[in-house]
C-alpha cells in the first residue's frame, strides 16, 4: 500500500459537492416545487394567476384524455420491458458464448442507437415508415407481402405500436451493456460445477444466469419504467401525438395543454400526475420483484 491520503475535512467535501448540488437544485428541485405550486392555479402564462386549490387535480382524475395517454404510456412501457430487456438479455447471453467472434464490434454496433438523439431516431423512422417512399413498405412490396402494408403512422389502432418500435430499437444497447457487465461478474466456477452436474445451455441460463443477475434486472426494470413514463421526443417528432390523440403520451399531453392551450396550471398538474403515477408503478414493480431472494 502506498501513502495514505489525509482524510479531507467536511468543508472540502461539501465544497466539491456544492456545484453539483446547486445545479441539481436549480434544474430539478426548484422547477419541481414551482410545478407543484403552479398546479394549484389557473394560469395562462401572463401576470394573472387565480388560486383554485385542488380543482386541477379533480379535473385530472376525470380527464379521459389524460387516462388515454396514461394507457399509451403503459403500452409502451410493457412492450419496452419485454422488448428492450428481453432482447437485451438474449443478446447478452449469446454474446457470452465462447464461439462468438468480434465481441467488441457487436457490442459497439448494438450500442450505437443509444447515442443517437431521440429526435434523429424519430426522423429516421419517419422515413422508414413513409407510405410512398419508405423502406418498410418498399421491402414488403419486394417480398410480395404487399397485403401487410398499413398506414403505419396514420392508423390510430396501430400507431402506438409503430411508435414503440423505434423506442425499443434505440435502447436495447443500453440494457445490453448493463446485462453484459452483470453477467461477467458471475463467477465461472458456478457454471463449471453446473456443467459437471449435466446442465445444458438453456438450463444454465434459467437457473444460474437469471437468478444471479436478479438485482441488476430489478434496476433495469426500474430504469425502463421511469424512462418510458416520461418518453416524449421520439413520438413528438414522428406523430406529434397524432393522429388526434391516439399516440399522445402524458408528457405530450402536458406539453399540448401548457403551450398549445395556454393552460399552464393544468399542464403542471398533469406533470405532477405523471410523477405520482411513475412513482407508484416503480414501487409496485419493486414490490413484485423484490420478494424473491437469491440462493448462491
Amino acid at each position: 500500500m502506498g501513502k495514505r491520503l489525509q482524510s479531507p475535512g467536511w468543508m472540502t467535501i461539501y465544497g466539491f459537492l456544492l456545484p453539483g448540488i446547486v445545479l441539481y437544485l436549480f434544474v430539478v428541485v426548484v422547477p419541481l416545487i414551482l410545478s407543484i405550486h403552479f398546479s394549484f392555479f389557473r394560469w395562462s402564462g401572463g401576470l394573472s394567476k387565480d388560486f383554485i386549490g385542488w380543482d386541477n387535480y379533480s379535473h385530472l382524475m376525470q380527464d379521459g384524455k389524460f387516462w388515454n395517454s396514461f394507457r399509451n404510456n403503459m403500452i409502451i412501457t410493457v412492450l419496452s420491458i419485454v422488448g428492450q430487456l428481453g432482447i437485451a438479455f438474449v443478446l447478452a447471453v449469446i454474446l457470452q458464448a465462447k464461439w462468438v467472434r468480434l465481441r467488441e464490434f457487436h457490442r459497439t454496433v448494438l450500442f450505437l442507437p443509444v447515442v443517437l438523439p431521440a429526435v434523429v431516431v424519430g426522423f429516421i423512422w419517419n422515413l422508414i415508415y413513409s407510405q410512398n417512399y419508405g423502406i418498410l413498405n418498399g421491402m414488403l412490396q419486394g417480398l410480395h407481402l404487399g397485403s401487410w402494408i398499413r398506414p403505419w403512422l396514420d392508423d390510430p389502432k396501430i400507431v402506438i405500436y409503430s411508435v414503440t418500435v423505434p423506442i425499443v430499437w434505440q435502447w436495447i444497447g443500453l440494457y445490453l451493456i448493463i446485462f453484459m457487465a452483470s453477467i461477467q461478474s458471475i463467477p465461472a466456477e458456478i457454471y463449471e460445477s453446473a456443467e459437471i452436474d449435466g446442465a445444458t445451455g438453456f438450463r444454465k441460463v434459467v437457473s444460474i444466469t437469471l437468478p444471479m443477475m436478479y438485482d441488476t434486472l430489478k434496476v433495469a426494470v426500474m430504469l425502463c419504467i421511469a424512462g418510458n413514463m416520461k418518453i416524449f421526443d421520439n413520438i413528438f417528432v414522428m406523430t406529434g401525438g397524432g393522429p388526434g390523440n391516439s399516440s399522445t403520451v402524458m408528457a405530450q399531453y402536458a406539453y399540448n395543454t401548457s403551450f398549445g392551450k395556454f393552460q399552464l396550471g393544468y399542464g403542471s398538474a398533469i406533470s405532477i400526475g405523471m410523477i405520482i403515477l411513475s412513482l407508484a408503478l416503480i414501487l409496485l414493480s419493486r414490490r413484485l420483484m423484490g420478494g424473491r431472494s437469491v440462493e448462491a
Partner: protein
Amino acid sequence: MLALGTTAAMLALAGCGSGNGNSDAPPSGSASAGSTSPDAGSAGPIKLTLGDRLLETSTDGSVIAHRQMIEEFKKEHPNVEISEESLQDATYKTKIKTLAAGNDLPDVFELLGSDAQMFADNKLILPLDDIMNQDPEWKQGFIPSTLNDFTVNGQLVGAPMQMLSTSLIFYNKEIFDKVGITEFPKTWPDFLKAIDTLKANGYTPISLGNKDKWVAESCILSELGDRFTGTDWFSSIKNRQGAKFTDKPFVDALAALQQLSKVGAFNTDMNSIDNNQQRTAYYNGKAAMFLEGDWAISSLSSEAPQEIKDNTHLAILPAVDGGAGKPNAVSGGAAWAFAINANLKGDKLQAAIDLVKKLTGVEEANLAAENNAVAATVPTDYDKSKVVPLFNEYLQLFQGLELSPIYDAQLSPAVIETMNNGLQDLLIQSVTPEQLAKDIQSTYEGS
C-alpha cells in the same frame, strides 16, 4: 456551473410573472436611457432580437420579400445589429407561446391573430396607434380590414404583414378533363361526384398533409364552416354573443368534412405528412387537387414541373345547399403581423419601429407582388412581367370574392388547440361531429 444554475433560477423566477423582461434575453444589449431621438449611433450598436418564420429556404413569395427587406434594413442601418431566429411554422407557433409564458419575447416578432388578445391582455406587446398616427403615409398604405384583424380592446397591436386567402383549391385541369369533368363543380353534390369519378380513375382526389394540424382547419374548415354557418355566427362566437359550436350549422360543417374523408377523398397518410409534402403528390400527377392558401402559388411556381404549372388552376369550395354563408366567400385575412415587445424604450424602440415600417411598407408590398404574394399594404408600382400567370388568375378570382374569417387567426389558442387535435380524429372517424363540437364548446366555455 453556478452561473448556469443561477441563470436557470432566474428563468424560473421570471416565469413567476415578475414582469421583468430584460434580465435574461441572451443576445440583446440593455436598453439605453430614455431619449426618443432617432438612432444616431451614439450609444454604440443597437441590438434587436427578431423572431420570425422567414426561413431562408422558403419558396413563399411573402417570405422572399420580407427577407430582402431585412437585408436592406441591415444595409441602411449599419449600427443596428439584428439577432434573428427563424423557425418553421409549427415550431414557431409553439415557441412564441412558450416565450410569452416566460415573458421572454423577442424585441420584434411575428404575431398570430389568435394570440393577439392574450398577448395584449398580458401587456406583452406595444399598442401601435400613436406610432401609426405619427406616420399617416404608413398607416394609409394598409388595406383597412387588415388593421381591424389586429385591433384588440380598441387598440392596434400589430402591423399586418400580409394578406392571405387560406382556402384555395389548386386543381389540375388536365386530370379533370381526362376523367370527363369539364367544369369545376359549383355545388356540394357535384363536388362529391367529381371526387368519386377521380377516385374511380385511380387518382387521389385531394392531397392533404395535416400533420401539423392546422391545414385541415385553416385551409378547409374555415371556409367550409362559413358556407354552413355564415359570418354572423362567427362574429357572435368571437364576441361571445351567444353562438355555440354545438349549433347545427357548425356540426353540419364538421360532418361534411368527415364525409369527404369517408368517401376517400384524401390520401391515407394525411395525418403524417405536412403541407409541403402534400404538394408532392400533386406535382407527381397522382393527386388531382390540393387545398392551401395563396402562399402556395409562389411555392408551386418554383417547385412544380412545367406541365403541372401549366395545367393548374384555382377554385374555391362549392356552395352548400341551404347554407347561411355566401358562396363566394374565401377564408382569409391578415393572419400574421409584426409586433413590438412592450418593454422596449428609447433608441431600441425607434430601431424596432423602423424595422417594422420597413417590413410592412410600400416597398415590401411591391416586392411581394413581384414574387406572387399579397402584402397587407397596397402595392403601388411593381413589375407585372415578373408575375406568374397563376398569380394573375388569383388576383382576378379574388376580385369577385369576399373574406370570411380564418379560424386560427381569430379564435383563442385553447379553442384552436382542441379544434385542431379534434380534426385529426374527425378525419380518421375516431370522433363524431357532435362529440367534437361538444369538446370545442366546453373548451370555449372554460377559457
